[in-house]
Each structure stands twice: as structure tokens, then as C-alpha cells.
């Protein structure tokens, strides 16, 4: 019974931490525009957190450049246990239009395990919300 409540709580208040590992900030702005009145995510309980300690879901945008790779790993380790990763935007899924550059590790999945991929360059805000919802179903 207890963990049924805990599951419910986890589903109802997913806190997001956003990390941009070298992207063109198109997806980041779409992610930020989730909080604005038109696409208000706070009604789903999603809150944008600013410290890895507080967050549950790491939403990562951008192809992983060599410089950000070490930091991406460290942030992933800093997050407390029940954590998930969403790769937002085709850059973070497969390196997108920049794949093959001399400085890019195509996509997030060869650095940290990823749960949900959101395609689109830049990914539309509705797609991000849909990604989070799909992730929450996976949590059950």
C-alpha cells in the first residue's frame, strides 16, 4: 500500500532539471516555454528545479560536445536515486545535424542511459510534455 502512494506521489510531482550539453538552444527555449502561460506545466506538477539534488528527471538537450561530456556524467551521478533521463531534440538523440563533427559524441545515449527520446529539431513543447507523460506511465 505504501509504495502505491509513493508511486502516485512520484507521478504527480516530477521535478525537471535541464542541462544543455552543447546544443543550439532551440530546444532549451522550447523547454523553458513549457512554463509560460500558453503551455503551463505546473498544472501537471512539473517544476523546473535548479540543483541536481532536488530533481527527478534530467532533460538533456544538444549533442554532447567533448567538453560537456564529463559534466554530464557528474550531474547524472549527483541526482538522487529514482532518476530518469529524457533526451530532448534530435541533437541529443542522435547528434542531429551536427553528427560527424570532430567534437561531437553523437547523442546522449553513449554517455548516460536514456529513458525517453523526443525527436524534433527543435522539439515542440507539446512533444516534451508528451515525452514526460509517457515517462510517467513507465514509472507505474
Amino acid at each position, binding site marked *: 500500500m505504501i509504495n502505491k*502512494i*509513493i508511486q*502516485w*506521489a*512520484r507521478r*504527480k*510531482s516530477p521535478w525537471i532539471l535541464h542541462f544543455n550539453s552543447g546544443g543550439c538552444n532551440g530546444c532549451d527555449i522550447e523547454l523553458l516555454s513549457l512554463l*509560460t*502561460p500558453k503551455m*503551463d506545466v*505546473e*498544472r501537471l*506538477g512539473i*517544476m523546473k528545479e*535548479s*540543483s541536481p*539534488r*532536488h530533481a*527527478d528527471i534530467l532533460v538533456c538537450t544538444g549533442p554532447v560536445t567533448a567538453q560537456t561530456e564529463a559534466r554530464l556524467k557528474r550531474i547524472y551521478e*549527483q541526482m*538522487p*536515486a*529514482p532518476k530518469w533521463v529524457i533526451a530532448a531534440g534530435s541533437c541529443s538523440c542522435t547528434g542531429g545535424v551536427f553528427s560527424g563533427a570532430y567534437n561531437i559524441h553523437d547523442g546522449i545515449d553513449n554517455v548516460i542511459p536514456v529513458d525517453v527520446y523526443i525527436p524534433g529539431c527543435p522539439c515542440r513543447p507539446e512533444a516534451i510534455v508528451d515525452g514526460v507523460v509517457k515517462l510517467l506511465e513507465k514509472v507505474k
Partner: protein
Amino acid sequence: MLFHWVDRKLTAKFEGRIGPPWYQPLADVIKLFAKEDILPNGTNDLFASLLPLTSFATVLTAGFYIFGAFISTEFSFAGDFIVIVFLLSLPSLLFFLGGWTTSGVYSILGGNRSLLQYFSYEVLFLVALSGTSIASGSWSLSGIRSAQENGLPYIIPQLIGFVLAMAGLIGKLKRSPYDIPKAKSEMIVGPLTEYSGKRLALWQLTDYVQTIAGIALLAQCYFSGIWEVYSLPGIAISLVMMLGLQFALSMISAIFTRLRIDQLIDLNWRFFIPLSLFHNVLIIIL
């Protein structure tokens, strides 16, 4: 808990958004309890978990006193007013200590700032509230309330005192325009950066209860003349009063930008404190 939801819903409404559902604070806290705790090595575990616990306990006791005085007069003894204000002011000190134990860079800086703010705003809160107790001539909550029952509620003769107490309350609860220690954009979350899981949940709870206790105290001191407490409508009116105060709090936090630490300090010492002292002197003369 519900008040926190009211607050988030109101700020969302100001910003033209639909706020979170009512059970949101509840869900946040339960989820945090279920999360794993990580503490940076080098912080002694006992101290780090003790702090949120004590701060939550102190605020809870303060809350009981206030609500106790609401229900019936036997609970409040002579000096309970001072005890409540002291208990309410303790969490911000613990907040600062919390910052020091988790030796992160942001925590220490956040801690320093909350200390600076602590000195200036606790004093203000105490001085402004003492205006009412001077007028009513007694240091116990019920004394204040009974003095108001016959005469006018204190809000009218002591409007300045009320406004100052409100400013003190905002400073104490670290709400925007004074939320510098928890400033999202500079200090990440100040002292709470390193906390997670259960400890964070406790800090969150202290914040909720502290807000309610502060508002209830204000309502108690300034509005209590209008209704007699024990009957059902009395409680309804007091609830409405507290919601009104909560509305004012959210409104203020929606309008102002976050003040810099130096602006905050000199605004307080050069403007608020002398005003409140002068105000008290005025009451004594009257």
C-alpha cells in the same frame, strides 16, 4: 500545506497560468520522502539531519501555541507572545546553520546572506508586533485579543505597525522581494543546494508551517477584535482573514523584483526600523 497550495495557485494566477492541483504540495513532500539521500562527504550526517528536524519541531510548537490561543484562552500563559516570536525566528537561524554544514560553495554564501537578512528582519518583526502588545498592555496573546474585543481591532489605529510587521514577515519567510538566500538565479537554492530526499522534505515542511504560523500570528494580533473566537462563524472569519493575508503576500511577491542584499539591509535599517520605533513611541504616548 493547503496554504502553500493557495500561494502557488495565486502566483500562477497573477502570471496568467493555471496553478498546480490542490494536492501538489502533498505529492511533493511524499515524493521527497521516498527519494534517496545523498550528502556530500565531509558533512557529518547527524548534524545535517538534526537541523531540519529541529527547525521543523520549533515551528510546529509555535504553530500549536498560536492555534491554541485561537481555540481557548487557557492555553496562552503570560509570556507566550515572546515565546512564539522566538520559536518562529529559530528556523531562519537553523537555515543558516544548514548551509554551513553542507560545505558547498553556494551553501556557504547562501548561509551568510540568510544570516544578514536574519538580523535585520527578525528585529523588525519583533519591534512591529510589540506595538500591539504595548497597546494592549500584556504580553500574552489572549491578553492582546481581549483588549481588542471591546475596542477597535488593532488594524485601524496601528496601520503602520501592521505594514511593518508584514514587511518583517516577508523578510523572515524569505519570500520574494527578499528571497535572496534562496535566490533561484544566483545561489541556486542557497543552503538547501546539497539537501535532498527526507531532509529537503523537512525543510519544505518547515517553510509551509512557518508561513501559516506567521500569518496566524498577524491575524491574531491585528484582526482579532471583530469576532469572538469560539463560535463556528468566528473560525470561518479568521480563515478568510488569513486567506486575505496570504493573498497580500502572493501579490507583493509577484510585483517586486528581488532586491540586492545591500539595498535590502539599508532599506531596512534606514527606513523600517526607525519608523517602527517611532510608531511604538507614539503608542506609548497615546
